[in-house]
């Protein structure tokens, strides 16, 4: 036996053994409660009946139209997995939303916290409990998946892959519901928010990742049909190669794992106390997610046709801009400094400077977000330059696209990060900071256009459009107009936003340093007063 493999296998068995021997207490308790609830089997039965009737009805309709049996089988399989996806997308978050919020509302939450279970243990227990429930729903639907086999047109491998995909999506749905549940204290609010978001976003995600991506997959691999549940079909029909590995294996796994990890870290942060380290997990996620997102976008830029580089770069740069803006808002509730508890734990466990740098603290978090933003945009721009440089015909337009989108993306992301840092250093409310930043961002995005429109009407000149240059939505205009009166104001504006952002970040960091000094001073004063305080006084 390979000596290098044996310990790995043993450790894996050990982990499984530990899970079986010492299961998460929350999971066991929630399963016991669910078993007594009575409503779970009825819900599974109702869902199964509803999906069965829908699939059979549609099968009957399609058969009556004298379509070939293989097509009927494929159509039924698509209908079944689409319905199953809807069940998972709606029921998964709702089941998970029930978990933490119900504990808080039922006043049992504090009892759990005081047992010494860590927030990550609690989150894992809650996740596994909700996931088990949703897995039961999926298992309940499984017999219906056999109906299409009566007609053919779909293989057992495709059905198994479809179920595997469903289970992965269920993990994401549960993680999302758990994150929402950890943020609110009312069960009703948790249910309403998760249901609302699920109902709103499910069709959008189904259309984008279903029909939208199926069209792209069909273009890459003509054997893959443009059907909403295309991924299991692509696994069996696309030829194996680098594109298969990247787009059918790495990309789906990453696009499920990264958000699921984010929801997990968000849940753990929300379950932790305000004096605990709520930053490290989210910062680790941010760094890995930034690397993954940038890598994926770089691959996309390198694979795109040289003649399409200007438009494609605008799209990928906008995606990166959205991600960096999200990061800026995510860290808006960062504490000014690490709490006394966190600093003591660092000292006791002899944490390295790098570990501490990934910990709580406004200055270091702002620096991290700005550094990662710069690194991501620079890498993306470099990849695009590399791709378009050997093609002189497109270089001018492509260069303008790279400069414009990189400039606005980098400049405005830095501005928002700096503004968040500045406001946070003067405001105790994270949501207050977020609301002000959103209001300022909206004003910057829209107001210049309003002024430019009025100026255009008054002056009747095309140049009036340059007034809209402060808006970050001006980037596509630079590319379409390609005149000095749009290029120069654009460069001035995004440089300006970048510079203001850095200055605001510096002010925020200085305020954080002052807070650290004040905290140390207060601690010293308290120590001094305790040292001089008389012991409990006897009469």
């Amino acid at each position, binding site marked *: 036996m390979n000596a290098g493999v044996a310990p790995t296998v043993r450790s894996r068995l050990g982990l499984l053994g530990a899970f079986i021997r010492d299961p998460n*207490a*929350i999971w*066991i*308790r929630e399963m*016991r*409660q669910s078993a*007594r*609830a009575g409503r779970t089997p009825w819900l599974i039965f109702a869902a199964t009946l509803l999906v069965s009737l829908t699939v059979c009805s549609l099968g009957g309709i399609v058969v009556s139209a004298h379509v070939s049996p293989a097509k009927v089988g494929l159509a039924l399989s698509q209908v079944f997995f689409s319905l199953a996806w809807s069940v998972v997308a709606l029921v998964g978050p709702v089941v998970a939303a029930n978990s933490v919020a119900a504990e808080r509302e*039922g*006043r*049992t939450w*504090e*009892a*759990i*916290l*005081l*047992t*010494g*279970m860590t927030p990550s243990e609690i989150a894992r227990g809650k996740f596994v409990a909700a996931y088990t429930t949703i897995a039961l729903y999926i298992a309940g639907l499984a017999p219906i998946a056999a109906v299409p086999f009566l007609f053919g047109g779909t293989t057992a491998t495709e059905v198994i892959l479809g179920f595997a995909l469903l289970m992965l999506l269920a993990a994401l749905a549960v993680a999302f519901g758990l994150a929402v549940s950890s943020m609110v204290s009312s069960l009703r609010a948790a249910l309403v928010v998760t249901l609302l978001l699920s109902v709103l976003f499910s069709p959008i995600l189904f259309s984008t990742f279903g029909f939208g991506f199926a069209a792209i997959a069909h273009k890459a691999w003509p054997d893959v049909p443009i059907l909403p549940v295309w991924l299991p079909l692509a696994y069996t029909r696309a030829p194996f190669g680098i594109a298969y590995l990247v787009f059918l294996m790495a990309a789906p796994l990453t696009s499920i794992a990264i958000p699921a990890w984010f929801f997990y870290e968000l849940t753990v942060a929300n379950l932790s*106390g*305000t*004096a605990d380290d709520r930053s490290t997990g989210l910062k680790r996620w941010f760094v890995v997610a930034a690397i993954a997102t940038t890598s994926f976008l770089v691959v996309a830029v390198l694979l795109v046709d040289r003649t399409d580089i200007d438009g494609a770069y605008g799209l990928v740069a906008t995606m990166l801009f959205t991600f960096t803006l999200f990061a800026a808002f995510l860290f808006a509730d960062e504490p000014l400094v690490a*709490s*006394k*508890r966190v600093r*003591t*734990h660092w000292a006791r466990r002899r944490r390295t400077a790098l570990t501490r740098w990934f910990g709580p603290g406004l200055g270091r978090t702002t620096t991290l977000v700005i550094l990662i933003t710069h690194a991501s945009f620079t890498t993306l721009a470099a990849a695009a330059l590399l791709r378009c440089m050997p093609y002189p015909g497109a270089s001018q337009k492509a260069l303008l696209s790279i400069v414009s989108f990189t400039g606005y993306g980098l400049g405005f992301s830095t501005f928002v990060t700096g503004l968040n840092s500045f406001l946070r250093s003067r405001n105790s409310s994270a949501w207050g900071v977020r609301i002000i930043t959103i209001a300022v961002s909206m004003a910057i995005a829209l107001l210049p256009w309003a002024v430019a429109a009025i100026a255009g009407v008054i002056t009747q000149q095309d140049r009036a459009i340059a007034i809209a240059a402060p808006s970050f939505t001006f980037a596509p205009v630079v590319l379409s107009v390609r005149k000095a009166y749009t290029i120069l104001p654009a460069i001035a504006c995004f440089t300006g936003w970048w510079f203001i952002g850095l200055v605001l970040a510096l002010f925020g960091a200085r305020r954080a340093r002052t807070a650290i000094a004040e905290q140390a001073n*207060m601690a010293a004063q*308290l120590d001094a*007063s*305790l040292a001089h*305080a008389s*012991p*409990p*006084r*006897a*009469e």
Partner: protein
Amino acid sequence: MNDQVELPINVEPGAVPAIRVRHLWHRFGRFDVLRDVSFDVAQGQIFGFIGPNGAGKTTTIRILSTLLEPMAGLVEVLGYDVTIDTDAVRRQVGYMPDHAGVYERVTVREYLEFFADAYRVPTAGTTYAVVDAAMELTDLTRLCDKLVATMSKGMKQRLQLARVLLHDPKILILDEPASDLDPRARIEIRDLLQELRSMGKTIFLSSHILTELADVVDAVAILERGQVIVAGPISEIAQRLSDRQSVTSPIDPLTNTNVPAPEPTRTVKLRVLAAQNVVTQVLIALPFVRSVTPGAMGTLIVTFVGDDHAIAAMVQSLAQGGLSVVGVEPERNELERIFLEATRGELQ
């Protein structure tokens, strides 16, 4: 810093107090909930923490049990700082909040087994000896297979108490443990607390029901508007109060001179097997008796100046007059008297 704070005197010098609070401040928004709170609780005591609604009792308790981080000050539980050594404090403390919830769709045994697992209490396979012990102590053994949803409030309160005992904490922090309970359940909880004290547990008890606290507590702290206005053993606080009353002379606002202080009076209820007018004549003749008024159910309420010796003298006079005294009890218990006088601001 509050110079007038009366710190308890019952912690032996050098001994580690079960709870040590120094200069504790906490603020919600712009409102100071706790202002320079300081007190000690000795190990093995039952300590009553009392005060009007909104005084800051629950905030203090949440800080002690690590659910809230203090904004300033030092709070230690058996020498562990609640801000830093959260895990160590949680191992030493069993906290039962006011109106805490329970999981309804599990049995008593399942409920306790869940918490035993969560506390990582060592078990021998599937045998939870600690769960059996906790159920026995709280008299829940016969209900072990009963669903929690079907239990009465009193039984649920016992279940909560069993839960906080599972990890064998040295200190129990109980916030209003007898609220919403019927008289029988209250008596049972009180007896249970005394049993726990005999096992060496320190009990930090917050309650509004002063008559019940008076029967069990060794020492108290009275909190008003976020400040400890008096703390220590009941007898010593009572003594301090009467000492202050006897030496303090109010100032006449018109002449700005001291006026004679009103006599510190006490009230006692007497039940005598005789006509009330006869008893009144005997008592009113005593020099320290100020008034005698009829009370409920044939009792007489006697207002007098002095201490317990005066009560003994009253009983002796009645006995010498051939009148049989069948009951003597203070109109208010000591703790109620202390609370009323302290929260009137007489100590501030």
